[in-house]
């Protein structure tokens, strides 16, 4: 009875939302800046299509057509107020109703949307742009005073960075350069050309240029469940990019555990760092290549990484890309104390991460996946055989635009976990999602994630069978 009432209330809430959005006049920032439909850059938001990836890669500029005067000219053209308005966008994303089935009971409840985000972003000059997210999370999970708690958080969001095209700098030191659509490009027509290198610095997630990017249809993570200061259930996230090891700690002083589902290095909630990426044409092969190197903070250590991507296709309504990633994390986590696994030792570990990703698009189909392997080093000798030093994550996703307004998605996440052998469990999750786009920038979704392995009592990765989430994704 209670569950039926809750479902009814969820539908009423969605109905009210439907009525409300019809009067909304705001739109996402880039769509307004360029007077473009969302679909020009997104297969359906938030997943970027090839053009959107190019737009992002070029510093949020229409490829080969950057506004020559940048911000100043925009203010002259549109006025200060309109320019400010066009620089802002708002997003509300996450669940409105959630039901979780465990071996013991079924818990159904209303949940507030996970995130309210204000975007402030635009190109400032043809070769310089910025992107800032300010975020409110009603149910953020934070670690304080030695325990996990859930509370509302407001602050900087996933990303806050500027992006600058350093092509002109290369020109100053002698590289041949060209002006292409008011941006500087290195090289010569008919021969090798390079757009960039683009410098992206601030709080960043460099994965947008990877074949398995952050922006995807099944983007909302299920809720992290916290009880009595402990994490009772991990969220379902792409396992390929999680920390993967049980028993590690983020810091030594507070002893904050590194959750095995924390996304690190790529596909992250963002971390301070510096990223250089460039798109190369006519280098050995006649296909565009993106090369990327950078440094990224992780906990009390830092990462050095390199990635490479090759694009094929753009024929027969199809495109294909493959990517490779290699990363060395210097002191990115603390190993557990060999004598007390609930406390960090005095040893920081290094981590080698490497893997591949691919993406194939054909008509309404979009398939993408990543296989990422991690290996840790510098463990305390006392851990001996108690710690599995390697772990692997696999994530495979498929989106299908079944109808102009309906996106079907599925994702399989497989974790071959590493870490303390007395804690570690592998995980396998299959998720499905139906997303209905009322407008291009307003969507309702229903999602179901299934733990396809046996449930394990009192284990946060496996103590559940099924999680249903009704949610909403509004971008204004």
């Amino acid at each position, binding site marked *: 009875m209670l569950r039926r009432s809750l479902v009814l209330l969820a539908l009423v809430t969605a109905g009210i939302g439907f009525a409300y959005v019809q009067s909304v006049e705001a739109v996402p920032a880039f769509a307004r800046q360029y007077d473009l439909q969302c679909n020009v850059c997104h297969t359906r938001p938030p997943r970027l299509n090839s053009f959107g990836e*190019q737009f992002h890669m070029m510093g949020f500029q229409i*490829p080969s057509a950057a506004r020559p005067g940048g911000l100043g000219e925009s203010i002259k053209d549109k006025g200060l107020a309109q320019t400010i308005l066009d620089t802002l966008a708002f997003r509300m994303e996450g669940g409105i109703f959630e039901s979780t089935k465990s071996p013991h009971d079924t818990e159904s409840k209303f949940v507030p949307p996970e995130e309210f985000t204000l975007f402030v972003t635009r190109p400032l000059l043809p070769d310089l742009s910025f992107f800032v997210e300010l975020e409110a999370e009603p149910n953020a999970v934070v670690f304080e005073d030695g325990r996990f708690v859930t509370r509302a958080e407001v602050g900087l969001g996933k990303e*806050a960075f*500027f992006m600058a095209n350093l092509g002109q700098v290369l020109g100053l030191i002698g590289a041949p350069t060209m002006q292409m659509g008011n941006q500087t490009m290195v090289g010569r027509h008919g021969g090798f050309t390079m757009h960039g290198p683009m410098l992206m610095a*601030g709080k960043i997630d460099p994965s947008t240029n990877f074949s398995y990017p952050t922006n995807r249809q099944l983007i909302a993570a299920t809720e992290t469940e916290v009880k009595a200061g402990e994490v009772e259930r991990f969220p379902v996230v792409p396992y390929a990019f999680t920390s993967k090891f049980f028993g590690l700690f983020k810091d030594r002083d507070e002893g904050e555990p590194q959750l095995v589902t924390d996304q690190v290095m790529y596909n992250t909630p963002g971390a301070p760092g510096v990223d250089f990426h460039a798109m190369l044409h006519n280098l050995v092969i006649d296909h565009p290549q993106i090369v990327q190197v950078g440094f990224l903070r992780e906990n009390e250590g830092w990462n050095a990484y390199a990635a490479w991507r090759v694009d094929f296709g753009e024929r027969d309504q*199809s495109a294909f890309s493959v990517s490779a990633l290699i990363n060395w994390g210097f002191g990115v986590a603390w190993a557990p104390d060999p004598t007390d696994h609930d406390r960090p030792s005095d040893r920081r570990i290094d981590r080698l991460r490497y893997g591949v990703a691919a993406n194939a698009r054909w008509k309404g189909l979009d398939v993408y996946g990543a296989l990422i392997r991690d290996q840790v080093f510098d463990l305390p000798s006392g851990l001996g055989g108690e710690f599995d030093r390697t772990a692997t994550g696999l994530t495979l996703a498929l989106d299908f635009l079944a109808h102009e307004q309906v996106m079907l998605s599925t994702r399989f996440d497989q974790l071959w976990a590493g870490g303390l052998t007395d804690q570690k469990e592998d995980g396998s999750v299959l998720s499905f999602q139906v997303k209905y786009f009322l407008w291009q920038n307003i969507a309702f979704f229903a999602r179901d994630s299934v733990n396809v392995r046996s449930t394990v009592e009192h284990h946060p990765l496996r103590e559940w069978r099924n999680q249903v989430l009704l949610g909403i994704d509004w971008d204004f």
Partner: protein
Amino acid sequence: MKHWWYVPLALVTLAVGVWVTNPPALRANGEDKHEIEEVGHAHVPAPLEYADLLMPPSVWTDQAMIARGKEIYAANCAVCHGEHGDGKGPAGQALPLKPSDFRDRHAVAEMRDNYWFWRASEGGTVEPFKSRGSAMPPWKGTLSVEDRWAVIAYQHTFSGHQGPHVPWEHPEMVQMGRDIYRMACVSCHGLDGQGDGSVGPTLSPNRAPQPRDFTAGLFKLRSTPTGELPTTADLFRTVTEGIRSRGGPLTLGLSGYRIMPSFRHMPEEQRLELVEYVKSLNQGFWTRQDVKTVPVPAPPPETPERIARGRQLYADAECWTCHGRSGRGDGPSAPTLKDQNDFPITATDLTEPSRFKNGATPQDVYRTVVTGLTGTPMPSYEDALEPDQAWDLVYYVLSLSSESHRASGVAR
């Protein structure tokens, strides 16, 4: 979220970034400084008024034309360009901008025929050659069009190339446009220009408009008669303005609804280069002759009488069957409309000029009425309406929207 210090760090780095990325202006378009200043070989596209003045491909290998060109060259050009086309004629040595060396195969391969014809016609009287000190006289008043073709065909022989001087023989002549196309257009229009990039199927799934197939020769937005290829200026206008659309779920709150971006911020010469590459994807652009456009006369004053006559024409020509009685695109035939690919296509909502694909000024609407939109159910009324009647219809169509909507449609 607790690391607020990212903000000042990002701002400081931002300031450094502004400083770093604002060095002095660099050379444009990959031109070599030596080529520009000393040889005068500059990769600038011919202006729009010359862009469609193409030499028939047969002229390049027509021995009679080449012989005729040789005589003209000897009499008029050799004094500067040299008897053997090496740019070392006796009068050319003292010139600040050295005459072109036609034996330079690389440079000649990059010169499009409309560029060559423009140079022969205008000489050094136009920019950028004028300010670089070009002393070349304009030959358009002295030599007929055919004489200029003949002398160009002869000059071409110095390069040693035997075939016609066309893009499918010399891809170099559209290389810059190709590079721009690969950056900006390929994801929708596809690598080979067949409109089969990966974006089209999700942009407007199973309905019109789909990205244009440049190889098929069907172009909607033209100033030429129905069924013919567009002019260079038509393509330039589309690249500049982008394309608005209606149909399918929209982005809430937008008024313009572009599905093809406007490339108005791309420098004009690069837009021209891009258009030249697009033209190279269809040989018809190079083999056609006598590019005719449907004339758009000066708009007459808008009067209530004219609008009333237009209303009657709208009824008599049965425009309402697609566009609806009130012009909202909801006529009885609207749900059945298909384009040339058999995709459903919406009838334009005439009350929203900001979404007119072919522009919203009275001249734009006139052009749409008289040329039609090839590949769509919108026919050409060139033969059915006198110009004055077409203007009546244009003003009636524009009267269906409010003044503010008309103004915003034109402003875009």
